[in-house]
Protein backbone atom coordinates (compact mmCIF):
# COMPACT_ATOMS: atom_id res chain seq x y z
CA UNK A 1 0.00 0.00 0.00
CA UNK A 2 1.48 3.31 -1.10
CA UNK A 3 0.85 6.30 1.15
CA UNK A 4 0.43 9.64 -0.61
CA UNK A 5 -0.05 13.11 0.86
CA UNK A 6 -1.44 15.85 -1.40
CA UNK A 7 -0.94 19.61 -1.17
CA UNK A 8 -3.79 21.66 0.29
CA UNK A 9 -5.31 22.78 -3.02
CA UNK A 10 -5.60 19.22 -4.26
CA UNK A 11 -7.04 18.05 -0.96
CA UNK A 12 -9.72 20.70 -1.51
CA UNK A 13 -10.31 19.35 -4.98
CA UNK A 14 -10.97 15.78 -3.84
CA UNK A 15 -12.81 16.90 -0.69
CA UNK A 16 -10.62 14.74 1.50
CA UNK A 17 -7.82 16.07 3.67
CA UNK A 18 -6.48 12.70 4.81
CA UNK A 19 -3.49 10.71 3.70
CA UNK A 20 -4.33 8.56 0.68
CA UNK A 21 -3.57 4.85 0.50
CA UNK A 22 -3.14 3.46 -3.01
CA UNK A 23 -2.83 0.02 -4.48
CA UNK A 24 -0.23 0.24 -7.26
CA UNK A 25 0.13 -2.52 -9.82
CA UNK A 26 3.61 -3.51 -10.99
CA UNK A 27 6.75 -1.57 -10.26
CA UNK A 28 6.26 1.41 -7.97
CA UNK A 29 7.47 4.52 -9.76
CA UNK A 30 6.37 8.13 -9.91
CA UNK A 31 4.43 7.29 -13.05
CA UNK A 32 2.65 4.26 -11.66
CA UNK A 33 1.78 6.05 -8.43
CA UNK A 34 0.40 9.04 -10.31
CA UNK A 35 -1.49 6.78 -12.72
CA UNK A 36 -3.11 5.03 -9.75
CA UNK A 37 -3.84 8.35 -8.07
CA UNK A 38 -5.52 9.78 -11.18
CA UNK A 39 -7.48 6.57 -11.74
CA UNK A 40 -8.92 6.82 -8.24
CA UNK A 41 -9.46 10.61 -8.40
CA UNK A 42 -10.03 11.61 -12.05
CA UNK A 43 -10.37 15.24 -10.98
CA UNK A 44 -6.61 15.21 -10.41
CA UNK A 45 -5.93 14.58 -14.11
CA UNK A 46 -3.81 17.46 -15.34
CA UNK A 47 -3.16 18.93 -11.91
CA UNK A 48 0.14 17.20 -11.10
CA UNK A 49 1.26 16.42 -14.65
CA UNK A 50 0.73 18.62 -17.67
CA UNK A 51 -2.02 16.96 -19.74
CA UNK A 52 -0.23 17.56 -23.04
CA UNK A 53 3.30 16.48 -22.08
CA UNK A 54 2.68 14.31 -18.99
CA UNK A 55 5.63 16.12 -17.39
CA UNK A 56 5.55 17.20 -13.78
CA UNK A 57 4.06 20.69 -13.53
CA UNK A 58 6.71 23.31 -12.83
CA UNK A 59 5.52 24.25 -9.35
CA UNK A 60 4.96 20.68 -8.15
CA UNK A 61 7.59 18.68 -6.27
CA UNK A 62 7.83 15.03 -5.15
CA UNK A 63 9.44 14.32 -1.77
CA UNK A 64 10.04 11.03 0.04
CA UNK A 65 12.49 9.77 2.64
CA UNK A 66 13.73 13.33 3.15
CA UNK A 67 14.84 13.49 -0.48
CA UNK A 68 13.62 15.60 -3.39
CA UNK A 69 12.76 13.06 -6.09
CA UNK A 70 11.34 15.64 -8.49
CA UNK A 71 14.14 15.36 -10.99
CA UNK A 72 14.29 11.57 -10.99
CA UNK A 73 12.99 9.75 -14.04
CA UNK A 74 9.23 9.13 -13.77
CA UNK A 75 10.00 5.48 -14.42
CA UNK A 76 12.71 5.10 -11.77
CA UNK A 77 11.75 2.83 -8.87
CA UNK A 78 10.69 4.71 -5.75
CA UNK A 79 12.56 3.99 -2.48
CA UNK A 80 11.78 0.69 -0.76
CA UNK A 81 10.43 2.56 2.27
CA UNK A 82 7.75 4.12 0.03
CA UNK A 83 6.98 0.75 -1.56
CA UNK A 84 6.60 -0.88 1.87
CA UNK A 85 4.43 1.93 3.18
CA UNK A 86 6.92 2.90 5.87
CA UNK A 87 7.40 6.31 4.30
CA UNK A 88 4.98 8.73 2.60
CA UNK A 89 5.23 9.93 -1.00
CA UNK A 90 4.60 13.66 -0.74
CA UNK A 91 3.23 15.71 -3.64
CA UNK A 92 4.11 19.27 -2.75
CA UNK A 93 3.15 22.67 -4.15
CA UNK A 94 6.19 24.93 -4.38
CA UNK A 95 6.26 27.64 -1.75
CA UNK A 96 5.66 31.19 -2.96
CA UNK A 97 6.00 34.14 -0.66
CA UNK A 98 5.57 37.86 -0.87
Amino acid at each position, binding site marked *: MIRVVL*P*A*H*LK*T*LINDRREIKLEVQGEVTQRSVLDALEARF*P*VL*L*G*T*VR*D*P*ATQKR*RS*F*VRFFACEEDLSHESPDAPLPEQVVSGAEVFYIV*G*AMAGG
Partner: protein
Amino acid sequence: MSGVRVLVGTKKGAFVLTADGQRKDWTVNGPFFEGWEMYHVKGSPVDPNRIFASQSTGWFGQIVQRSDDGGATWAPVGNQFLYDGVPGTHQWYDGTPHPWEFARVWHLEPSLSDPDTILAGVEDAALFRSTDGGDSWAELSGLRNSESGSSWQPGAGGMCLHTIIVSPNDPERIHIAISSAGVFRTDDGGTTWAPKNKGLHSEGIPDGDAEVGHCVHRIALHPSRPDTLFMQKHWDVMRSDNAGDSWTEISGNLPTDFGFTIDVHAHEPETVYVVPITSDSVHYPPEGKLRVYRSTTGGNEWEPLTKGLPQANCYVDVLRDAMAVDSLDSCGVYFGTTGGQVYASSDAGDSWEPIVRDLPSVLSVEVQTLA
Protein backbone atom coordinates in the same frame (compact mmCIF):
# COMPACT_ATOMS: atom_id res chain seq x y z
CA MET B 1 -41.26 35.34 -7.87
CA SER B 2 -38.44 36.88 -9.87
CA GLY B 3 -34.95 37.12 -8.55
CA VAL B 4 -31.31 37.37 -9.44
CA ARG B 5 -28.27 35.24 -8.90
CA VAL B 6 -24.89 36.98 -9.10
CA LEU B 7 -21.95 34.70 -9.87
CA VAL B 8 -18.66 36.09 -8.61
CA GLY B 9 -15.24 34.73 -9.47
CA THR B 10 -12.37 35.86 -7.25
CA LYS B 11 -8.70 35.18 -6.82
CA LYS B 12 -9.45 32.84 -3.92
CA GLY B 13 -12.74 31.15 -4.71
CA ALA B 14 -16.23 31.67 -6.13
CA PHE B 15 -19.30 33.17 -4.49
CA VAL B 16 -22.99 33.02 -5.34
CA LEU B 17 -25.07 36.03 -4.28
CA THR B 18 -28.85 35.77 -4.49
CA ALA B 19 -31.75 38.15 -3.96
CA ASP B 20 -35.38 38.50 -4.91
CA GLY B 21 -36.50 40.99 -7.54
CA GLN B 22 -36.22 43.86 -5.10
CA ARG B 23 -32.47 43.30 -4.97
CA LYS B 24 -32.19 44.65 -1.43
CA ASP B 25 -31.62 41.65 0.80
CA TRP B 26 -28.82 39.37 -0.32
CA THR B 27 -27.72 35.89 0.62
CA VAL B 28 -24.02 35.18 0.19
CA ASN B 29 -22.96 31.57 -0.46
CA GLY B 30 -19.32 30.54 -0.70
CA PRO B 31 -16.48 30.44 -0.96
CA PHE B 32 -16.61 27.57 -3.41
CA PHE B 33 -13.26 26.10 -4.48
CA GLU B 34 -11.40 27.83 -1.67
CA GLY B 35 -8.00 29.17 -2.55
CA TRP B 36 -8.33 28.64 -6.30
CA GLU B 37 -8.43 31.42 -8.86
CA MET B 38 -11.91 31.55 -10.38
CA TYR B 39 -11.49 33.47 -13.60
CA HIS B 40 -15.09 33.13 -14.73
CA VAL B 41 -18.40 31.67 -13.58
CA LYS B 42 -21.34 31.78 -15.98
CA GLY B 43 -24.76 30.16 -16.25
CA SER B 44 -26.53 28.69 -19.25
CA PRO B 45 -29.19 30.99 -20.71
CA VAL B 46 -31.15 27.85 -21.62
CA ASP B 47 -31.00 26.13 -18.23
CA PRO B 48 -30.23 28.62 -15.43
CA ASN B 49 -29.52 25.80 -13.00
CA ARG B 50 -26.55 24.79 -15.14
CA ILE B 51 -23.50 26.90 -14.29
CA PHE B 52 -19.93 26.50 -15.45
CA ALA B 53 -16.85 27.72 -13.56
CA SER B 54 -13.22 28.07 -14.56
CA GLN B 55 -10.96 27.07 -11.68
CA SER B 56 -7.17 27.30 -11.91
CA THR B 57 -3.91 28.00 -10.18
CA GLY B 58 -0.42 28.46 -11.54
CA TRP B 59 0.57 25.42 -9.47
CA PHE B 60 -2.01 22.83 -10.42
CA GLY B 61 -3.42 23.96 -13.75
CA GLN B 62 -6.99 24.07 -14.96
CA ILE B 63 -10.21 22.53 -13.69
CA VAL B 64 -13.69 23.18 -15.06
CA GLN B 65 -16.59 22.76 -12.67
CA ARG B 66 -20.27 22.40 -13.46
CA SER B 67 -23.31 22.81 -11.28
CA ASP B 68 -26.72 21.51 -12.29
CA ASP B 69 -28.56 22.90 -9.29
CA GLY B 70 -27.96 26.61 -9.50
CA GLY B 71 -24.61 26.62 -7.78
CA ALA B 72 -25.50 24.64 -4.67
CA THR B 73 -23.31 21.67 -5.60
CA TRP B 74 -20.55 21.28 -8.17
CA ALA B 75 -18.71 18.51 -9.97
CA PRO B 76 -15.60 18.66 -12.13
CA VAL B 77 -15.97 18.08 -15.86
CA GLY B 78 -13.29 17.86 -18.55
CA ASN B 79 -10.07 19.82 -18.29
CA GLN B 80 -8.13 18.56 -21.29
CA PHE B 81 -7.53 21.60 -23.47
CA LEU B 82 -5.19 20.22 -26.09
CA TYR B 83 -4.36 22.37 -29.08
CA ASP B 84 -5.38 20.83 -32.37
CA GLY B 85 -2.60 19.12 -34.31
CA VAL B 86 0.97 20.36 -34.02
CA PRO B 87 0.43 23.65 -32.21
CA GLY B 88 3.22 25.62 -33.88
CA THR B 89 4.39 28.95 -32.53
CA HIS B 90 3.41 32.54 -31.91
CA GLN B 91 5.72 35.46 -31.21
CA TRP B 92 7.28 35.67 -27.77
CA TYR B 93 8.07 38.94 -25.98
CA ASP B 94 11.51 39.07 -27.58
CA GLY B 95 10.13 38.46 -31.06
CA THR B 96 11.26 34.85 -31.24
CA PRO B 97 8.85 32.01 -32.06
CA HIS B 98 7.32 30.47 -28.93
CA PRO B 99 5.26 27.28 -28.75
CA TRP B 100 1.59 27.65 -27.89
CA GLU B 101 1.17 26.67 -24.26
CA PHE B 102 -2.14 26.33 -22.50
CA ALA B 103 -2.25 28.35 -19.28
CA ARG B 104 -5.89 28.75 -18.23
CA VAL B 105 -9.48 29.35 -19.24
CA TRP B 106 -10.30 33.04 -19.03
CA HIS B 107 -13.89 33.00 -20.22
CA LEU B 108 -16.71 30.47 -20.51
CA GLU B 109 -19.61 31.22 -22.86
CA PRO B 110 -22.57 28.83 -22.62
CA SER B 111 -24.64 28.45 -25.78
CA LEU B 112 -27.76 30.56 -26.25
CA SER B 113 -29.71 27.51 -27.42
CA ASP B 114 -28.16 24.26 -26.13
CA PRO B 115 -27.33 23.61 -22.47
CA ASP B 116 -24.65 21.07 -23.43
CA THR B 117 -22.72 23.41 -25.71
CA ILE B 118 -20.21 25.86 -24.32
CA LEU B 119 -17.26 27.83 -25.68
CA ALA B 120 -14.08 28.50 -23.74
CA GLY B 121 -11.55 31.25 -24.38
CA VAL B 122 -8.08 30.33 -23.17
CA GLU B 123 -4.52 31.57 -22.76
CA ASP B 124 -2.43 31.11 -24.96
CA ALA B 125 -5.17 32.50 -27.14
CA ALA B 126 -7.44 29.84 -28.59
CA LEU B 127 -11.11 28.95 -28.67
CA PHE B 128 -12.42 25.57 -27.52
CA ARG B 129 -15.91 24.09 -27.72
CA SER B 130 -17.66 21.38 -25.75
CA THR B 131 -20.90 19.82 -26.94
CA ASP B 132 -21.26 17.42 -24.01
CA GLY B 133 -21.69 19.76 -21.09
CA GLY B 134 -17.98 20.34 -20.60
CA ASP B 135 -16.90 16.71 -20.42
CA SER B 136 -14.67 17.03 -23.49
CA TRP B 137 -13.22 19.95 -25.40
CA ALA B 138 -12.09 20.43 -28.99
CA GLU B 139 -10.26 23.42 -30.36
CA LEU B 140 -11.79 25.56 -33.11
CA SER B 141 -8.33 25.80 -34.57
CA GLY B 142 -9.25 27.89 -37.59
CA LEU B 143 -8.82 30.92 -35.37
CA ARG B 144 -5.31 30.19 -34.17
CA ASN B 145 -4.31 28.97 -37.61
CA SER B 146 -5.68 32.04 -39.36
CA GLU B 147 -3.27 34.16 -41.36
CA SER B 148 -2.06 36.34 -38.50
CA GLY B 149 -1.96 33.73 -35.72
CA SER B 150 1.75 33.09 -35.78
CA SER B 151 2.39 36.83 -35.38
CA TRP B 152 0.29 37.29 -32.25
CA GLN B 153 2.35 38.39 -29.28
CA PRO B 154 1.37 38.45 -25.61
CA GLY B 155 0.92 41.68 -23.72
CA ALA B 156 1.84 42.08 -20.08
CA GLY B 157 -1.30 40.25 -18.97
CA GLY B 158 -0.70 37.22 -21.16
CA MET B 159 -2.12 36.33 -24.56
CA CYS B 160 -5.65 35.55 -23.53
CA LEU B 161 -8.86 35.06 -25.44
CA HIS B 162 -11.16 36.84 -23.01
CA THR B 163 -14.36 37.77 -24.83
CA ILE B 164 -16.76 35.52 -26.75
CA ILE B 165 -20.00 36.83 -28.23
CA VAL B 166 -22.25 34.50 -30.17
CA SER B 167 -24.65 36.46 -32.33
CA PRO B 168 -28.16 36.24 -30.91
CA ASN B 169 -29.70 35.89 -34.37
CA ASP B 170 -27.04 33.81 -36.13
CA PRO B 171 -25.26 31.02 -34.23
CA GLU B 172 -22.70 30.77 -37.03
CA ARG B 173 -21.44 34.29 -36.29
CA ILE B 174 -19.12 34.65 -33.32
CA HIS B 175 -16.98 37.59 -32.27
CA ILE B 176 -13.98 36.97 -30.03
CA ALA B 177 -11.35 39.30 -28.62
CA ILE B 178 -7.75 38.59 -27.73
CA SER B 179 -5.52 40.79 -25.63
CA SER B 180 -2.86 42.33 -27.83
CA ALA B 181 -4.26 40.80 -31.03
CA GLY B 182 -7.74 42.30 -31.34
CA VAL B 183 -11.21 41.30 -32.51
CA PHE B 184 -11.85 38.39 -34.85
CA ARG B 185 -15.12 37.21 -36.38
CA THR B 186 -16.33 33.98 -37.89
CA ASP B 187 -19.46 33.73 -40.02
CA ASP B 188 -19.27 29.97 -40.48
CA GLY B 189 -19.46 28.66 -36.95
CA GLY B 190 -15.75 28.88 -36.23
CA THR B 191 -14.15 27.33 -39.31
CA THR B 192 -12.69 30.54 -40.74
CA TRP B 193 -11.92 33.82 -39.04
CA ALA B 194 -11.06 37.35 -40.08
CA PRO B 195 -9.62 40.22 -38.03
CA LYS B 196 -12.14 43.00 -37.40
CA ASN B 197 -10.08 45.92 -36.16
CA LYS B 198 -10.47 48.57 -38.85
CA GLY B 199 -10.71 51.97 -37.25
CA LEU B 200 -8.82 51.03 -34.11
CA HIS B 201 -5.74 53.09 -33.41
CA SER B 202 -3.23 52.06 -30.76
CA GLU B 203 -0.17 54.08 -29.84
CA GLY B 204 1.51 51.15 -28.15
CA ILE B 205 2.21 49.24 -31.37
CA PRO B 206 4.61 50.14 -34.19
CA ASP B 207 1.86 50.64 -36.79
CA GLY B 208 -1.00 52.20 -34.88
CA ASP B 209 -3.52 51.25 -37.54
CA ALA B 210 -2.34 47.68 -38.05
CA GLU B 211 -4.85 44.98 -38.88
CA VAL B 212 -3.94 43.01 -35.73
CA GLY B 213 -2.04 43.77 -32.56
CA HIS B 214 -4.58 45.92 -30.73
CA CYS B 215 -5.10 45.40 -27.03
CA VAL B 216 -8.86 45.04 -26.90
CA HIS B 217 -10.09 44.69 -23.33
CA ARG B 218 -13.74 43.77 -23.80
CA ILE B 219 -16.62 43.99 -26.26
CA ALA B 220 -20.35 43.90 -25.56
CA LEU B 221 -23.61 44.08 -27.47
CA HIS B 222 -27.35 44.31 -26.93
CA PRO B 223 -29.26 41.23 -28.14
CA SER B 224 -31.68 43.35 -30.19
CA ARG B 225 -28.81 44.95 -32.16
CA PRO B 226 -26.45 42.12 -33.04
CA ASP B 227 -24.49 44.29 -35.47
CA THR B 228 -23.78 47.02 -32.93
CA LEU B 229 -20.74 46.31 -30.77
CA PHE B 230 -19.24 48.41 -28.02
CA MET B 231 -15.58 48.08 -27.08
CA GLN B 232 -13.35 49.12 -24.23
CA LYS B 233 -9.89 49.07 -25.72
CA HIS B 234 -6.68 49.50 -23.72
CA TRP B 235 -7.18 53.17 -24.46
CA ASP B 236 -10.35 54.37 -26.28
CA VAL B 237 -13.99 53.39 -26.08
CA MET B 238 -15.26 52.37 -29.53
CA ARG B 239 -18.41 51.26 -31.33
CA SER B 240 -19.18 49.42 -34.53
CA ASP B 241 -22.52 49.37 -36.31
CA ASN B 242 -21.53 46.81 -38.92
CA ALA B 243 -20.59 43.79 -36.81
CA GLY B 244 -17.01 44.89 -36.43
CA ASP B 245 -16.24 45.72 -40.06
CA SER B 246 -15.28 49.22 -38.89
CA TRP B 247 -15.04 51.03 -35.58
CA THR B 248 -15.41 54.65 -34.48
CA GLU B 249 -14.32 56.22 -31.24
CA ILE B 250 -17.01 57.24 -28.74
CA SER B 251 -14.84 58.22 -25.77
CA GLY B 252 -16.32 61.74 -25.84
CA ASN B 253 -16.20 63.46 -22.46
CA LEU B 254 -14.93 60.54 -20.37
CA PRO B 255 -12.32 61.66 -17.82
CA THR B 256 -10.03 58.92 -19.19
CA ASP B 257 -10.77 56.41 -21.89
CA PHE B 258 -8.59 53.70 -20.39
CA GLY B 259 -10.50 50.91 -18.69
CA PHE B 260 -11.30 47.25 -18.81
CA THR B 261 -15.02 46.59 -18.66
CA ILE B 262 -18.00 47.70 -20.73
CA ASP B 263 -21.62 46.59 -20.83
CA VAL B 264 -25.00 47.51 -22.30
CA HIS B 265 -28.33 48.16 -20.55
CA ALA B 266 -30.70 45.20 -20.80
CA HIS B 267 -33.58 47.18 -22.34
CA GLU B 268 -31.94 50.25 -23.89
CA PRO B 269 -29.52 49.28 -26.65
CA GLU B 270 -27.94 52.75 -26.75
CA THR B 271 -27.25 52.88 -23.01
CA VAL B 272 -23.70 51.83 -22.28
CA TYR B 273 -21.65 51.57 -19.08
CA VAL B 274 -17.89 51.85 -18.54
CA VAL B 275 -15.67 52.29 -15.50
CA PRO B 276 -12.83 54.67 -16.40
CA ILE B 277 -9.45 53.75 -14.96
CA THR B 278 -6.67 56.33 -14.77
CA SER B 279 -4.17 54.81 -17.18
CA ASP B 280 -2.32 51.68 -18.19
CA SER B 281 0.28 52.40 -15.53
CA VAL B 282 -2.15 53.54 -12.83
CA HIS B 283 -4.81 50.92 -12.41
CA TYR B 284 -7.30 52.75 -10.20
CA PRO B 285 -10.02 55.33 -10.78
CA PRO B 286 -9.06 58.95 -11.50
CA GLU B 287 -8.83 61.11 -8.36
CA GLY B 288 -9.58 58.13 -6.16
CA LYS B 289 -13.29 58.43 -7.07
CA LEU B 290 -15.06 55.26 -8.15
CA ARG B 291 -17.39 56.33 -10.94
CA VAL B 292 -19.38 54.33 -13.43
CA TYR B 293 -20.02 56.37 -16.56
CA ARG B 294 -23.24 55.90 -18.49
CA SER B 295 -24.04 57.04 -21.98
CA THR B 296 -27.68 56.96 -23.07
CA THR B 297 -26.74 58.10 -26.55
CA GLY B 298 -24.60 55.18 -27.63
CA GLY B 299 -21.40 56.93 -26.64
CA ASN B 300 -19.66 60.32 -26.79
CA GLU B 301 -21.87 61.90 -24.11
CA TRP B 302 -21.21 60.31 -20.74
CA GLU B 303 -22.52 61.05 -17.23
CA PRO B 304 -20.83 59.99 -14.02
CA LEU B 305 -22.83 57.73 -11.70
CA THR B 306 -21.60 58.23 -8.16
CA LYS B 307 -24.47 57.81 -5.71
CA GLY B 308 -23.44 55.13 -3.24
CA LEU B 309 -19.94 54.72 -4.65
CA PRO B 310 -16.84 55.90 -2.76
CA GLN B 311 -15.82 59.37 -3.92
CA ALA B 312 -12.59 59.65 -1.99
CA ASN B 313 -9.58 57.44 -1.30
CA CYS B 314 -10.71 54.63 -3.59
CA TYR B 315 -7.89 52.86 -5.39
CA VAL B 316 -9.39 49.66 -6.74
CA ASP B 317 -9.64 48.35 -10.28
CA VAL B 318 -12.60 46.87 -12.14
CA LEU B 319 -11.49 44.08 -14.47
CA ARG B 320 -12.82 43.21 -17.91
CA ASP B 321 -15.30 40.47 -16.97
CA ALA B 322 -16.36 42.10 -13.71
CA MET B 323 -19.53 43.91 -14.86
CA ALA B 324 -22.92 42.52 -15.80
CA VAL B 325 -26.57 43.52 -16.09
CA ASP B 326 -29.78 41.74 -15.17
CA SER B 327 -32.95 41.92 -17.27
CA LEU B 328 -35.54 42.79 -14.67
CA ASP B 329 -37.91 45.65 -15.59
CA SER B 330 -35.66 48.15 -13.88
CA CYS B 331 -32.30 47.04 -15.21
CA GLY B 332 -29.84 45.99 -12.54
CA VAL B 333 -26.15 46.71 -13.03
CA TYR B 334 -23.41 44.94 -11.07
CA PHE B 335 -19.67 45.19 -10.86
CA GLY B 336 -16.88 43.82 -8.70
CA THR B 337 -13.55 45.38 -7.74
CA THR B 338 -10.05 44.22 -7.02
CA GLY B 339 -10.72 45.40 -3.47
CA GLY B 340 -13.36 42.72 -3.03
CA GLN B 341 -16.50 44.84 -3.23
CA VAL B 342 -19.45 43.85 -5.38
CA TYR B 343 -21.72 46.81 -6.06
CA ALA B 344 -25.29 46.57 -7.31
CA SER B 345 -27.65 49.10 -8.76
CA SER B 346 -31.33 48.23 -9.13
CA ASP B 347 -32.10 51.46 -10.98
CA ALA B 348 -29.87 51.23 -14.04
CA GLY B 349 -26.95 52.89 -12.31
CA ASP B 350 -28.62 55.89 -10.68
CA SER B 351 -27.67 54.60 -7.24
CA TRP B 352 -25.45 51.84 -5.90
CA GLU B 353 -25.08 49.70 -2.83
CA PRO B 354 -22.43 47.14 -1.97
CA ILE B 355 -23.73 43.57 -1.77
CA VAL B 356 -20.46 42.53 -0.13
CA ARG B 357 -17.39 44.57 0.75
CA ASP B 358 -14.64 42.17 1.66
CA LEU B 359 -14.36 39.33 -0.81
CA PRO B 360 -11.01 38.38 -2.32
CA SER B 361 -10.06 40.40 -5.38
CA VAL B 362 -12.91 40.07 -7.89
CA LEU B 363 -12.05 38.67 -11.32
CA SER B 364 -15.53 38.27 -12.82
CA VAL B 365 -19.18 39.04 -12.24
CA GLU B 366 -22.09 37.49 -14.10
CA VAL B 367 -25.81 37.78 -13.38
CA GLN B 368 -28.69 35.40 -13.94
CA THR B 369 -32.22 36.77 -13.98
CA LEU B 370 -34.49 34.11 -12.52
CA ALA B 371 -38.18 33.74 -13.29
